[in-house]
């Protein structure tokens, strides 16, 4: 895993990310709704006492469950409506706030909180992994991962439009978008920069 900013590694990582982005766009409309259970993740049988299924870590499947994408979009809508109902706040500020709060929430819940809220039978393999890293047992480019990458981008486009591309708003929104997109890169799987959030 690459750490820090090594020049050749940096250039290499940008070359990789271009390939990754085109890959995402190519695959986006053809396989957005694929099921994650066909992703072929290697799941050996493990001891599960007290569960009705042989799923070692149920956290990996949460984002693929029925209705969760819709719930997520509705939650963003609810946040936006609540912010809109605050008086004396203008529409561009509301959009920027929506974007910032959404990205902050996503960063905390997907990229900061580690482990599982319940005991798993695999003796804690996922204890040091964030939820993003646990999704689908680390398989990249599954449908849920693509969805969760696209949503902040779409929100960013909407926010840029509604803030009329104002400079201050642009800076805030772009920084916030980067903070939520960069941890999702496959190259940063398991990477802890400067040891932040390692244990």
């Amino acid at each position, binding site marked *: 895993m690459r750490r820090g900013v090594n020049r050749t590694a940096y250039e290499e990582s940008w070359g990789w990310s271009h390939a990754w982005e085109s890959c995402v766009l190519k695959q986006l409309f053809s396989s957005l709704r694929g099921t994650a259970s066909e992703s072929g993740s290697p799941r050996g049988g493990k001891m599960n006492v007290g569960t009705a299924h042989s*799923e070692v870590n149920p956290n990996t499947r949460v984002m693929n469950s029925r*209705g969760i994408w819709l719930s997520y979009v509705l939650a963003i809508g609810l946040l936006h409506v609540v912010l809109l109902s605050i008086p004396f706040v203008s529409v561009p500020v509301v959009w920027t706030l929506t974007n910032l709060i959404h990205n902050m929430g996503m960063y905390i819940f997907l990229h900061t909180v580690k482990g599982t809220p*319940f005991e798993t039978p695999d003796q804690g393999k996922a204890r040091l992994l964030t939820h993003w890293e646990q999704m689908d047992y680390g398989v990249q480019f599954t449908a849920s991962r693509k969805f969760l990458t696209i949503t902040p981008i779409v929100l960013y486009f909407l926010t840029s439009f509604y803030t009329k591309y104002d400079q201050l708003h642009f800076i805030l929104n772009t920084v916030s978008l980067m903070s939520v997109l960069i941890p999702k890169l496959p190259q940063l799987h398991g990477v802890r920069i400067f040891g932040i959030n390692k244990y």
Partner: protein
Amino acid sequence: MRPGPGGCCCRRPALPNGCVANGELRNGYVRSSPAVAAASAAASSQIHHVTQNGGLYKRPFNEAFEETPMLVAVLTYVGYGVLTLFGYLRDFLRHWRIEKCHHATEREEQKDFVSLYQDFENFYTRNLYMRIRDNWNRPICSVPGAKVDIMERHSHDYNWSFKYTGNIIKDVINMGSYNYLGFAKNTGTCKEAAARVLEEYGAGVCSSRQEIGNLDKHEELEKLVARFLGVEAAMAYGMGFATNSMNIPAIVGKGCLILSDELNHASLVLGARLSGATIRIFKHNNMQSLEKLLKDAIVYGQPRTRRPWKKILILVEGIYSMEGSIVRLPEVIALKKKYKSYLYLDEAHSIGALGPTGRGVVEYFGLNPEDVDVMMGTFTKSFGAAGGYIGGRKELIDYLRTHSHSAVYATSLSPPVVEQIITSMKCVMGEDGTNLGKECVQQLAENTRYFRRRLKEMGFIIYGNEDSPVVPLMLYMPAKIGAFGREMLKRNIGVVVVGFPATPIIESRARFCLSAAHTKEILDTALKEINEVGDLLQLKYSRHRLVPLLDRPFDETTYEETED
């Protein structure tokens, strides 16, 4: 049932005739291809009542897992989201000592050490499970037959500790015990026989089978079990879980392949893991998934060396107790023969509960017991005892007697328990001179059909096969788990409720286990109360309303019409 293309996810083998000619096996997802559905909809209404799948199934296989309504799924996530947020808030309050902290924490002087208690891993237990903990581990104080006495308890600190009030809730209708044939009682021939043997042989054996713990009672039991199942020989073990976990390592090892169903029990998964074989999981009861895995295994062999697998073992259960589904045994056996692999069938819940004479899922489908290589089962559920057995060919059982850990190291069955099994098994077989066993098996089948039909008519979403005595009723939302359990206890009915992470996150359920000991009056009382609670908690999610039958007698060929 005429399946609609949008709502119901009924998985039934609805074959157009073309596939029968090829001998190809399919179970059709009617939802997936509207063209096939339209073409076969006309044909399927004709082949509805007769054999399907080219004669593999001698009776219709009606299994349904209705899809979660979208609104319910969204509200379930809202529920879990609110609980999570409140959980974080409460953890914050506990951390800053604003609220009293009930769970274990380290001492002050150890706070800077590496943490002893994984706080986040207990998040779910602390904040969700504790709130509704009074629905589980309820102490009972009578034999758990059709009715049971429960000790009343209440809690002053929101379920962190319980105190007994001293009252006993009497005659609670017991819908939670795996008492399929009603042998959980403390009166009758079984009890007298067991008491006699207790006086004669004592309570314990104090040895393993190989040393000095092999009693004549064990030999008698094993011969009886072999005769009951229709196999050459059988062996009995003291614990059902240990039967699976210690015998699978004895029959497969490194270099073998295990194909295990998604929803297999913990004992099977542990046994598979302990054996050291490679494990691949196929989707629940999905024969295409199994066939694909078998094909890939035979074509590609072992992962790096491409050598052929030494053995391929398919692990399935007879009835899956969380879903209420029955394994598609005819298709599994056909696949097993086609690809020359072995079959291990765990009949923990289906022995005694399925089949016209209670011989299990093999008899239910009218198949030959010799087709199943290893027949495993337990005596815990239908026979009112404890322990497990393995049945199969004599060579297999002789091998297991020397190579299985349970046989060599574990204590053998206790004599009164053995006598209970012998008496109850003879009763089921009809060899005790009465008709009691046959009546019990029939009563269970009637109860199953009746209960499931009535619940479906009321509009609940019920999972599983029509003939399975395990009835999961979907609750979905986390708050309803606790509410359902408590409301049912208020109305004197004891049920088992299950939630995440034991089930998938949106599929929490209440699970009813029917018994031959339940009379129709008991079932009617229970159904009335379930109806009331269903209205109170708005649990009637099903979008397929059944037309209620009027006065049709119980018989195997009665089917319901569905209105969409």
